[in-house]
């Protein structure tokens, strides 16, 4: 009897302890959630206030008016349909090509053993570590020289395809790295039985591995879309016609030469952030499983 009671008390004690722990963890998570959410909320709050109001009364004053004027102004000034189209014309091919080429290399280096496969993987991963600012001058000169050589100066420079190519080149290292690590978690036996059944290399890739890669491709796809979508640098240095540049450049249109209307800019940034959010929510389930799959290996 008394032992039962003691056990019960111990259980209660444990439960209480757990409760305190849980509360502590919740508070901890809560604090970080606020730290993360604050800038977003502040951006949206800023976007609802007219600049004139802020200029006259300061950033921390109580707002006299709150409205959506900044949004209508941003939409008209940013020339949204054109720049969204430009972004799509760069981001979509770049993401698909990156995933395609990345998965091809990952497949070869992780499924076949030959002399240079590890070095090849290292080469691709190392290429990922070079900062864009370091290599943009040679890339730029290469594009110009190539354009002059074929007599069409705008074949790569000042063309969306030039930007697509550089994104593919830059993101492929990371894509190869992630996909090959993921592929290594797929049991060798699957490949072996495919080969025993007489699958050629390409059938092995497209019919066996690719379907298994789907979660990894989806999560990589989300990451790549966000990165390429957010790029401003390459589009700036490799293009000279502003009306060909992506949405990140259109955000610059909201910024005056001297005056920066942060309220208007906040509205523009909110609008520009929407597509990546949509991509994330569409692929959310795949994204989460892609991130954790393979993590339980071993």
């Amino acid at each position, binding site marked *: 009897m008394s032992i039962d009671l003691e056990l019960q008390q111990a259980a209660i004690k444990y439960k209480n302890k757990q409760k305190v722990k849980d509360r502590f963890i919740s508070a901890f998570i809560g604090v970080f959630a606020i730290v993360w959410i604050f800038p977003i909320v502040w951006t949206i709050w800023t976007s609802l206030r007219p600049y004139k109001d802020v200029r006259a009364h300061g950033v921390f004053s109580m707002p006299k008016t709150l409205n959506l004027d900044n949004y209508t102004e941003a939409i008209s000034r940013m020339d949204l349909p054109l720049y969204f189209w430009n972004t799509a014309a760069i981001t979509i091919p770049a993401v698909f090509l990156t995933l395609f080429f990345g998965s091809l290399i990952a497949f070869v280096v992780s499924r076949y053993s030959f002399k240079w496969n590890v070095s090849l993987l290292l080469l691709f991963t190392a290429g990922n570590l070079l900062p864009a600012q370091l290599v943009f001058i040679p890339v730029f000169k290469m594009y110009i020289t190539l354009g002059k050589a074929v007599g069409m100066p705008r074949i790569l420079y*000042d063309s969306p395809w030039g930007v697509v190519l550089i994104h593919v080149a830059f993101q492929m290292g990371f894509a190869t790295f992630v996909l090959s690590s993921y592929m290594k978690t797929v049991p060798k036996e699957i490949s072996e039985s495919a080969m025993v059944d007489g699958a050629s290399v390409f059938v092995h890739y497209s019919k066996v591995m690719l379907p298994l890669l789907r979660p990894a491709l989806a999560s990589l796809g989300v990451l790549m879309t966000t990165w390429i979508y957010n790029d401003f640098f390459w589009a700036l*240095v490799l293009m000279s016609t502003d009306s060909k540049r992506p949405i990140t450049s259109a955000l*610059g249109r909201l910024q005056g030469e001297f005056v920066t209307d942060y309220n208007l800019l906040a509205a523009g940034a909110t609008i520009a952030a929407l597509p990546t959010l949509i991509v994330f929510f569409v692929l959310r389930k795949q994204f989460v499983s892609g991130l954790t799959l393979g993590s339980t290996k071993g």
Partner: protein
Amino acid sequence: MSDLNNGISRRSVLKGAAVGGLGLAAGGSLLAGCGSKATGPLAYGARSVDAGPTAQNEALIAAYTAKTKNEVKYNATESNAFQNNLSQYLQGTPDDTFEWMAGYRMQFFAEQGLLADLTGVWDSIGDQYSESYKIASTGLDGKQYFVPKSWYPWGLHFRKSMFQDLGLNADNVTNWDEYLKMLDGMKKKGLVGFAAGDKGGWEAMGTFDIINARVNGYQFHVDLLAGREKWTDAKVTDVFTHWAQLLPYMNPNVLDLEWDGAMQLLLQKKAGSMLMGSWFGGNFKEQSDADYADLSIIPFPEINPEHGRDTIDAPIDGWCVAANGTNNDGGADFLKFAGDMEGVNATLAAKDKDGKLIPMTSANSGQDTASYDPFQKEQLAVMAEAKYITQFLDRDTRPDFAGPVVGPAIQSWFKNPKDVAKIQDTLQKQWEALPPLA
């Protein structure tokens, strides 16, 4: 020139005059029209996406197209992005004519062979500009590479109503002691005397420029920026010593504010004066006409009687023609029009979205100063007093020195004003470490 061409240009001149409908312009257009040929379509690279300059450009281009029948493709890029990328832009597939700045900023690219020679343009419109503009448009090889559009002065700005309330008279603030006394009075009333922001890194360069020019004179200033004098010179120390005297009267958050934060202090009547380029007047105008009418400018006070108030930062904006463009003749032809009084009038006739004229102080001496608003007239007076015109620190020295070196150096001085010797040392070392210009 063939008869056919003559016929075309005469007709287009008549049309241009009719379309423009500008009585004053007609005389000029006849002269300019003689040289104008059908130079074909060209591309125009704008260095701004702001409403005012865009309206001006559109008006100018419309007038040019109406006159010459040459199509103009318009390519506008946000100014910071445009500026940072200019080197690539000029080496790649640039527009034929593009907006840029006079002085060192232009010479830097002219030296690299990226700008087209505009001596021909100056031969035909040069007499409409005073000598100082021609000098600012001339490259190191003595040829012109630039056509000026407009200018603005850097000076001390204040609000007339505030001075009235404080019982101050701007005419009495002519030298350093008087100025410090005035700042002291403002401080006692709880006001910021000298509003400043330097978060962007360039804002305070204007203060360095003017104090250096006042203390050490124009020649030392330009020699210093060109590397002929040393940053470790005691004269530079003297500049910081004077500057430090202003520190107690500045807002304490200089490094947290961009220039517009400082402007807000002036607008909200929390600050008594601000050293800035007069372009920001547009913000006051946007706020309200009353605020704009209240804005006033005086030259920065004298420090060293030897130099008086003889120097001013007055950046000149304008156009160049890109050597790598597809139509250099077209670009030059456009600038001949834009720099001529006919083009200037077309630009001045541009209206903003509220239907109001956009204030501009043109570089062309043909602009009727009687049409200036009171603030513009004050700008002109400030400008007229100066004997020497400088462009601005980041336009008067190497681009790879101004932004990456001088900007952060001044910011670090704000953090620790006692570190002057160390900062001077760093500046000189970094200047010496720069690669030679190609």
